[in-house]
C-alpha cells in the first residue's frame, strides 16, 4: 500500500500533543522537585503555544493541514487535521494553560500544589490539543478520556472533602457523557462504516436521514453534557468551585469549550442535514441555557459557584451559533468560545485572588475590598463587563455576530423564523442578566462598606506567597482580553475563517486527501 508522503512541516500538527505527553511522562519519572516541574511545564506550554501559532498562521494562509498516522491511507489511518477552528482554539488553550501555570507559581506554599499537579496539567493540555486537532471521531473520544482522567486527578489533588464530593458528581456524569459519545460513535460506524471526519462529511449526506438524525441527537446529548448546556448542567456548579482557584480556571477555560467545539464540529460540519432536523431542540437548549444560567448566578452566594453559572450562560451563547447555521452564526460561536476561554479563566483566577484577600468564599461575608485592593476591583469589573458583552469589550463582538446571524436568518425566511427571533432576544436578555449578576457580585465584594467586626478588613490574611505575582499573571490575561476587545480585527478574521471552514468543509476534505468533497 502506497502512502501519502508526509511533509516535514506537517509534523507541527502532532507537536502540541506529543510535547506535553512526553513532558508529563518525564515529570512523573523525574519531577520530584517542584521548581524543575514548574519550569519544564511552563517551557512545554510555551513551545506548544509557539507551534500552534505557526500552525494557525499556516492554516489561515494555505487552508487545512492533515497528517495520517502509520502509512495508512485515509480514511483507514487515524488522521490529525488542523483547520482554522481547531488550531485557533488550541492556541488559546495553550495560552490559558501558560497563564495558569504562572499564576500557581506565587501561590502560598501551603496550597496543595504538588509535582503531580504539573504532570496532570500537561496531560490535560495534551488531551485538549488532541481533541482540537484530531480528524478522527474515535480519536476524539480517546482525547476526551485523556482530558477526563487528568481532570479527575486535578480535582482531587487538594484532598479536601468538598473536592471529593464534587469529584464524584463530576466524574460520574462526565463518564456517562463520554460513554454516550462512544455509543453514538459505534452507531456512526455501523451506519457509515467510517470514523474519519472528512469521510463522514461525504458519507453522511448519502445515509438515511432518520438514522443520522438519531445519531446527531445522541451526539447533542453527549456533547451537551460535556459543555454543561441547560438540562444537563448541574454537575458544573456542583464541582468547579471545589478545587484550588487555578484548577477551576483551567477547567472553566478548557474543558467545557472542548464540548462546544465537538458540538460545532459534529453538528455544523459533519451532520448539517441532521442539525436541521434537531433545530428546534438546539434552539430551545440554547435559549434555556442563556436565560437560566445568569438567573442561577443571581441567586448564588458562593463566588466561584456564581462564576460557574456565568460560564454556563456563555455556553448557551456558543450553542446559539449551532442553532443559527449561517456564516455569522458559526463565526460568532467560534469567536465566543475564544472570548469565553480567556474571560472565564481570568474570572476564576481573580476569584482566587479575592478569596485570598478576604479569606472568604461567600460574598455575603466580603465587602469593602475596593479600599484595600483597588487593582483587583478594576480587574474584576473589566471581566464582568467583558463576560456580559458590553461594547467595546471582547465579549461584545461575538454576541454582535450572533445577533446579526439571527437577524440574517429571520430576513432569509424559512420555517425557523420564530426561533431566530427568540435566540436574538435571549442573547440580549442574557447580556442584561449577566451584567446585573456580575455587577451585583462586584458591589457585594468591593463596593459596599466593609462588614462590622470583620477581622479580615483590619489584618489581611495574606501571610505568605507573593500575591503581586498572581495579580500580574491575571493582569496579563486581562490585558490580552482588553486589547483584543479594543482591536477585534484579528479575532474576527479568525472567526470568519473558522466559520467558513465549518460550513463548507470542501477544503478540509481535500486536505485529508479524500476526493469527492462536497
Amino acid at each position, binding site marked *: 500500500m502506497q502512502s501519502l508522503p508526509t511533509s516535514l512541516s506537517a509534523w507541527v500538527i502532532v507537536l502540541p500533543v506529543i510535547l506535553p505527553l512526553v513532558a508529563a511522562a518525564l515529570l512523573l519519572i523525574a519531577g520530584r522537585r517542584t521548581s524543575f516541574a514548574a519550569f519544564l511545564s511552563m517551557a512545554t506550554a510555551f513551545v506548544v503555544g509557539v507551534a500552534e501559532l505557526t500552525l494557525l498562521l499556516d492554516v489561515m494562509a494555505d487552508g487545512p493541514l492533515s497528517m495520517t498516522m502509520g502509512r495508512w491511507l485515509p480514511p483507514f489511518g487515524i488522521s490529525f487535521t488542523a483547520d482554522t477552528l481547531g488550531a485557533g482554539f488550541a492556541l488559546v488553550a495553550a495560552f490559558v494553560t501558560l497563564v495558569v501555570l504562572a499564576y500557581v507559581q506565587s501561590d502560598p506554599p501551603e496550597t496543595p500544589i504538588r509535582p503531580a499537579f504539573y504532570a496532570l496539567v500537561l496531560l490535560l493540555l495534551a488531551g485538549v490539543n488532541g481533541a482540537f486537532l484530531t480528524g478522527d471521531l*474515535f480519536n476524539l*473520544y*480517546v482525547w476526551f*478520556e485523556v482530558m*477526563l*482522567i487528568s481532570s*479527575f486527578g486535578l480535582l*482531587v489533588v487538594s484532598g479536601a*472533602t*468538598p*473536592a*471529593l*464530593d*464534587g*469529584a*464524584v*458528581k463530576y*466524574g*460520574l456524569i462526565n*463518564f*456517562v457523557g463520554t*460513554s454516550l459519545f*462512544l*455509543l453514538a*460513535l*459505534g*452507531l456512526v*460506524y*455501523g451506519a457509515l462504516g467510517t470514523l474519519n471526519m472528512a469521510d463522514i462529511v461525504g458519507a453522511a449526506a448519502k445515509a438515511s436521514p432518520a438514522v443520522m438524525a438519531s445519531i446527531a441527537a445522541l451526539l447533542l446529548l453527549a456533547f451537551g453534557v460535556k459543555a454543561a448546556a441547560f438540562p444537563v448542567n448541574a454537575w458544573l*456548579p*456542583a*464541582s468547579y*468551585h*471545589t478545587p484550588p482557584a487555578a484548577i477551576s480556571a483551567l477547567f472553566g477555560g478548557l474543558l467545557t469549550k472542548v464540548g462546544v467545539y465537538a458540538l460545532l464540529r459534529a453538528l455544523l460540519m459533519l451532520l448539517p442535514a441532521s442539525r436541521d432536523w434537531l433545530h428546534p431542540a438546539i434552539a430551545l437548549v440554547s435559549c434555556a441555557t442563556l436565560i437560566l444560567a445568569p438567573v442561577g448566578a*443571581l*441567586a*448564588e*452566594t458562593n463566588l466561584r459557584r456564581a462564576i460557574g453559572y456565568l460560564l454556563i450562560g456563555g455556553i448557551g451563547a456558543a450553542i446559539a451559533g449551532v442553532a443559527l447555521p449561517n456564516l455569522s452564526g458559526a463565526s460568532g460561536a467560534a469567536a465566543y468560545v475564544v472570548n469565553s476561554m480567556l474571560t472565564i479563566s481570568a474570572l476564576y483566577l481573580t476569584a482566587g485572588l479575592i478569596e485570598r484577600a478576604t479569606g472568604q468564599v*461567600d*460574598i*455575603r461575608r466580603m465587602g469593602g475590598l475596593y479600599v484595600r485592593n483597588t487593582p483587583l476591583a478594576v480587574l474584576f469589573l473589566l471581566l464582568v463587563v467583558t463576560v456580559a458583552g458590553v461594547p467595546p469589550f471582547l465579549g461584545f463582538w461575538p454576541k454582535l455576530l450572533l445577533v446579526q446571524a439571527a437577524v440574517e436568518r429571520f430576513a432569509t425566511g424559512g420555517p425557523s423564523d420564530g426561533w431566530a427571533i427568540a435566540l436574538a432576544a435571549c442573547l440580549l436578555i442574557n447580556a442584561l442578566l449577566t451584567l446585573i449578576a456580575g455587577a451585583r457580585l462586584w*458591589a*457585594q465584594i468591593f*463596593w*459596599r462598606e466593609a462588614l462590622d467586626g470583620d477581622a479580615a478588613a483590619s489584618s489581611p490574611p495574606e501571610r505568605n506567597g507573593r500575591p503581586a505575582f498572581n495579580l500580574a499573571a491575571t493582569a496579563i490575561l486581562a490585558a490580552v482580553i482588553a486589547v483584543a476587545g479594543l482591536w477585534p480585527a484579528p479575532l474576527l478574521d479568525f472567526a470568519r475563517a473558522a466559520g467558513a471552514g465549518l460550513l463548507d468543509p470542501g477544503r478540509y476534505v481535500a486536505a485529508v486527501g479524500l476526493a469527492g468533497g462536497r
Partner: protein
Amino acid sequence: MDAMFAILAGVFIAVAIYLLLARSLLRVLLGLAILGNGINLLILVAGRLTRAAPPILRAGVAAPDGPIANPLPQALILTAIVIGFALFTFLLTLTYRSYQALGTGDADAMRQAEPTPSPNPPLGY
C-alpha cells in the same frame, strides 16, 4: 444474528440506564460497568458479525481470496475497554474514598460541595 445482538446490546443499555438513575452510588457504578459492556457489544455488531475467515493474510499474498472478518471493531473495543476500565477503577476508588470521608453512599445526602438548604442571596448592600 446481527439483530439479536443489537437487541441484546439494547437490553444492556436499558439495564444500565435503570441503574444509573439510582441514588445509591454503588448502583450507579454497576450501571456504568454495564453501560460500557453494552456499548462495546454495540460496536462489535456495528462492524457486522460474520463467520468468515480471520483477517490475516498468508505471506506473499496481497489481497484476501474470500470474505474476511472486520478487524476494526475489535481494535476500537480494545481501546474502549482499556479506557473504560481505567476510569471505572478510578471512580470506584474515588467513591470509596468519598464514602469514607462523607459517611454516605447516597448521592442526595452528599452535601459538602452544595450545602442545603442553600442560603438566600443578599437582598441589599
